[in-house]
C-alpha cells in the first residue's frame, strides 16, 4: 500500500484545530515583518489521525516483533514508564522554574545520578548528554580538558580499535584529535602488542568498547588499561554494550576513566524510531570537576532542630567543559530509566545481564554450524557471524537480512563491525522468550538452506513488505528531500 503524503491529502479550507477566541484587545500587527504566505498543509483531525495511524502500521517495532539488532539493545520498553513520564508534575514543568518548585524532579535526577555511579563504579555523573554519541563527545571533551589542565598540550592522538563504532573516530575528530587505529588479534581482542607500540606521550586516550562490538569481553582489559595509564593517557569506554555487565562487573573497576551509558539501550527507555535517547556520562573522581554544568545536588538545611533536605542545580564547577545541551538533558527519558532501576534493584539488574548473555550464547551455539563464526568462543550480550559462505553462493548478508523480514523478523545489524566480512551482528537482549529465539534460529537455518537451494528467493526478498527493495543509489544521485508538489 502507498499512503499519500500530508501535502497530497491537504484541501484548502480544512482545519484540524479548535483554538479559543482572543479575549484581550487586539494590537496592530507590524506589516513589514509579516509573511505573505504560510505554505503548510490543511487537514481535518480525522485525516491526520488516519494518516499517521496508517503510517505507523508500516513500521516494524519492538511491540510487534523480535529486533535482534546488534549493539542496539532493542529490549522491551515497559508501559508503566510511558505513563509516569507523562504525569503533569514531570511533563509540564518548566526548566527555568525556581528550584523550590521542582524538588521532586531534582530529587529524581540526583538519585538517578547516584544509581548510575553505583552501577558503573564511577562516582561523577552528568545526565545532560541526550544521546550516545553526545555522551561520547562530552566524555572526550573531558579527556581533552583534563590534559589541558595538566599542561599536557602534546597529546594529539586518540587510539580507536578497528572494531569500534563509527561514532568513536568521528567524536575524536570533533574534539580536534587525530585518530590512530588499533588492530584486533585473532581471538577478537584488541592487539595488545600493537597497542603498546602505538601508545606514547602523544596519546590522549583510548576509546574502547567492552564487551567490544564482536560481543567479546576484552580478555586483556586490565593490561590494556595499565598500558594506556602508564603513558599518561585515559580510558574512554563506549557504554553501548553495558547490558552485558550489569551487576556482573563495574567498568570503573576495569580501569575505565570515562564512560557513557545509553539509557535508551541498557535501561529500557524506547528508541523512538531514532531518538530521543539519553547518554549519561560517568567519570572517575579525578575527572568530576570537568563534567558539564549544572548537575543535580543535595544539601541538608538545618532549621532549628530539624534537618531538611534540599535539592538544587549545582553550577559551581570552574573547570567544567561547559554545558552540552540546552537544559539538563532529556528529563523525560530519565524518568523512565529511574522507574526501571526502582523496579529491578540489584538482583533484577544482574538477571538482565545473565539472561541477555545466555540468550546470545544460545543463538551463537544454534547457528554456528550454519553460518561462519569468525571468533569461536563464548560471547557476552551479542554474537557476530559472517555470511561469507553464503556470499560465495551469490547470496550476500543484505539478502539474508531482507529474507529475514519476509520470515517475520527484523534483521540483525549488518556489515558491522567492519573487520568481519559480510557481518551479521545479533543481539537478542534478555526480554525474548526461548520460543522466539528458536523461531529465529529456524528462520536463519532456513535461509542458509535457501541460499544453497533457492538463492533467487533470498536475493528477491522481501516480498511481504509495503515496499520491496528501494533504489538507494537513485535517492542519493538526485536527492528529493522535501515535497514540492
Amino acid at each position, binding site marked *: 500500500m502507498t499512503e499519500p503524503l500530508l501535502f497530497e491529502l491537504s484541501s484548502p479550507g480544512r482545519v484540524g484545530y479548535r483554538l479559543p477566541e482572543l479575549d484581550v484587545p487586539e494590537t496592530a500587527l507590524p506589516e513589514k515583518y509579516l509573511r505573505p504566505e504560510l505554505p503548510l498543509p490543511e487537514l481535518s483531525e480525522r485525516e491526520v489521525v488516519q494518516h499517521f495511524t496508517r503510517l505507523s502500521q508500516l513500521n516494524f517495532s519492538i511491540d510487534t516483533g523480535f529486533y535482534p539488532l546488534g549493539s542496539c539493545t532493542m529490549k522491551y520498553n515497559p508501559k508503566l514508564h510511558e505513563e509516569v513520564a507523562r504525569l503533569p508534575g514531570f511533563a509540564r514543568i518548566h526548566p527555568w522554574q525556581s528550584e523550590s*518548585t521542582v524538588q521532586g524532579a531534582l530529587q529524581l535526577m540526583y538519585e538517578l545520578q547516584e544509581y548510575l555511579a553505583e552501577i558503573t*563504579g564511577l562516582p561523577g555523573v552528568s545526565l545532560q548528554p541526550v544521546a550516545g554519541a553526545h555522551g561520547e563527545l562530552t566524555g572526550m571533551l573531558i579527556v581533552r580538558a583534563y590534559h589541558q589542565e595538566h599542561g599536557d598540550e602534546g597529546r594529539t592522538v586518540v587510539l580507536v580499535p578497528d572494531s569500534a563504532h563509527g561514532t568513536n573516530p568521528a567524536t575524536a575528530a570533533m574534539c580536534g584529535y587525530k585518530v590512530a587505529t588499533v588492530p584486533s588479534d585473532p581471538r577478537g581482542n584488541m592487539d595488545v602488542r600493537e597497542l603498546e607500540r602505538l601508545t606514547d606521550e602523544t596519546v590522549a586516550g583510548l576509546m574502547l568498547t567492552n564487551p567490544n562490538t564482536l560481543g567479546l569481553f576484552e580478555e586483556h582489559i586490565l593490561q590494556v588499561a595499565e598500558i594506556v595509564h602508564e603513558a599518561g593517557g585515559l580510558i574512554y569506554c563506549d557504554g553501548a554494550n553495558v547490558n552485558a555487565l550489569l551487576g556482573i*562487573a563495574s567498568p570503573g573497576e576495569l580501569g575505565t576513566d570515562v564512560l557513557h551509558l545509553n539509557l535508551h539501550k541498557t535501561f529500557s527507555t524506547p528508541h523512538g524510531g531514532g531518538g530521543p535517547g539519553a547518554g549519561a556520562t560517568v567519570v572517575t573522581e579525578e575527572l568530576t570537576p570537568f563534567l558539564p554544568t549544572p548537575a543535580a545536588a543535595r544539601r541538608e538545611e538545618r532549621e532549628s532542630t530539624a534537618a531538611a533536605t534540599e535539592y538544587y542545580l549545582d553550577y559551581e564547577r570552574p573547570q567544567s567543559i561547559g554545558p552540552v545541551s540546552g537544559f539538563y538533558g532529556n528529563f523525560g527519558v530519565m524518568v523512565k530509566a529511574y522507574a526501571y532501576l526502582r523496579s529491578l534493584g540489584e538482583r533484577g539488574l544482574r538477571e538482565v545481564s545473565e539472561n541477555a548473555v545466555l540468550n546470545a550464547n544460545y543463538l551463537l551455539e544454534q547457528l554456528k554450524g550454519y553460518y561462519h563464526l569468525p571468533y569461536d568462543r563464548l560471547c557476552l550480550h551479542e554474537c557476530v557471524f559472517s555470511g561469507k559462505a553464503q556470499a560465495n553462493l551469490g547470496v550476500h548478508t543484505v539478502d539474508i537480512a531482507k529474507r529475514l523480514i519476509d520470515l517475520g523478523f527484523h534483521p540483525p545489524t549488518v556489515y558491522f563491525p567492519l573487520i568481519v566480512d559480510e557481518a551479521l551482528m545479533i543481539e537478542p537482549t534478555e*526480554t525474548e522468550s526461548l520460543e522466539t529465539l528458536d523461531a529465529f534460529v529456524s528462520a536463519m537455518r532456513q535461509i542458509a538452506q535457501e541460499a544453497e537451494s533457492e538463492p533467487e528467493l533470498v536475493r528477491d526478498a522481501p516480498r511481504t513488505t509495503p515496499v520491496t527493495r528501494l533504489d538507494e543509489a537513485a535517492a542519493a544521485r538526485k536527492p528529493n528531500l522535501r515535497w514540492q508538489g
Partner: protein
Amino acid sequence: MSSYIPTTDADRRKMLEILGLDSLQELFEVIPPEKRYPHLDLPPPLSEMEVKKLLRGLAEKNADLDHHPCFLGAGAYHHFVPAVVDHIISRGEFYTAYTPYQPEVSQGTLTTIYEFQTMVCQLAGMDVANASMYDGATGVAEAGLMAARVTRRDGLVVASTLHPRYREVLRTYTQGMGMDIQEVGYGEDGGVDLRQADQLLGTGTAALMVQYPNFLGSLEDLQPLSELAHGVGALLVVCVDPIALGLFRAPGEQGADIVVGEGQSLGSPPSYGGPYVGLFACRQKYLRQIPGRLVGMTTDADGRRGFVLTLQPREQHIRREKATSNICTNEALVALAAATYLAIMGKHGLRQVAELCYHKAHHAASEIDALPGYERLFGQFFKEFVIRTPVSPATVNALLMEHGIIGGYGLERDYPQLGDCLLLCVTEMNTKEEIDSLLEALREIGDAR
C-alpha cells in the same frame, strides 16, 4: 522474575545444557575473577503499584503548569498540544521502533521524517532540512561547525541576543576546533548593533549567528544582517522560534543560509528541559555539509514510491573521523510530534496560535508598562518582552509564586546591565484571567516597595 524476562528456570536449564554449561556463572569466566559480581548498593526492587506511587509522589512535589499560570519562556515554551499529538507518538509502532536502517519495514518513520523535513523547509523558507538535531542549542553549535566547513574559515560572530545557553554550548562544541568566537551587542531597539557587527565581520568570519525573534524578545529585519554577512563572504545563521514563523517573514526570504531552532514549541511539553528537538535547514548548495540524517524519496523494485535514509556518506558510520558530525541518534519521536502538530495546526492554525501569542503578549506588555514602577524595554517584539521591575527580579518572582504564579526569567546572570529586568513570555495558554492576576500581583508588588 522482576526484570521483564520471559525465560523460565526450565528454559534456562535447557539452554545451559545445549551450551554444555552447568551454571550462568560459567558464562562470565572471561572476566577477571576478582572483578566479578560487585555488590551494588541500590534500593530494593518495587512492584508496579509501588513504583507508580513513588513516581507520583515525586511528580506531586513539583509545581506544574496545569495548576500554575506560567509566564516563563527563554527557550522552553508552554504552548497548547492537541490530544492527537500524544495519541500518535504513543503508538508502539512508532516509539518502540529503531532508526529506520531497514527501509522496507520502516516506511512509517521514514515518511513522517520526510514530511517533517518538508514542513521545516516551508516554515523556514529553506531548500533542505535534516531529520532533526538534539535540540536548539546543539543545532546552533552544529550550524557554527557547518559554516566553518562551508567557508573554510574559523571565525564566528555571534549576537549577544542569541540564547546565552546556546552560546555556551557553541563554545563547548568548538573548544577542540580552535575557533574564534566574538560577540556583537544589541542596540537601543534590542536588535543586533549593525555598526559593531560591521566592524567584527571580516574575511576570517565563517558566519554571523543571530536569533529571530531574539532572546530578549526583539524582532528585527534580517535583510541588513544578511547583507553584512554576505559582504565578507560569511553565512548568516538564524536561530528561530518556529511558532513565530506562523506569522513573521521566513528567514529564507531574508537571506539566511542556515536556519536552526528549538522545535519543542511544536507539540511537546516543557518536560523540565527535554526531550526537545533541533530544527536544522539550509540552502541546497550546502547540502553536502549538512550534519545528521536525511530522508529522501525514491522508488522500489516494483516502481512504487518509498523513502530511505540518504546521503549517508556524510555520516559517522561510513566516514568515521571524516564525517560532518558524530551525531547518530536524533530526536525522531519529538520530530514526529512536531510533524503531527504542524499537520493539525496547518496553514491557518499556526498563524492563529502566533496571533494569539502576539495580541496577548502585547496587551500584557502595555498594561505592565503602565503600572507605576515598571517599564517595558526595547522595540518590536513577538511573545516575549523585557520589563524593568521596581524591586529585584528574584523578589518579584518569589512574590508572584506566593500568588501561585510562575513569573519570568531574571536577566541578571546573563546580562548584568539588565540586572533589574525580567523576561516575560505570554502565549495562547495564558487566559485574560491569568494576565489580570499577573497584573494585579505586579501592581501589589510595586505598591508595597
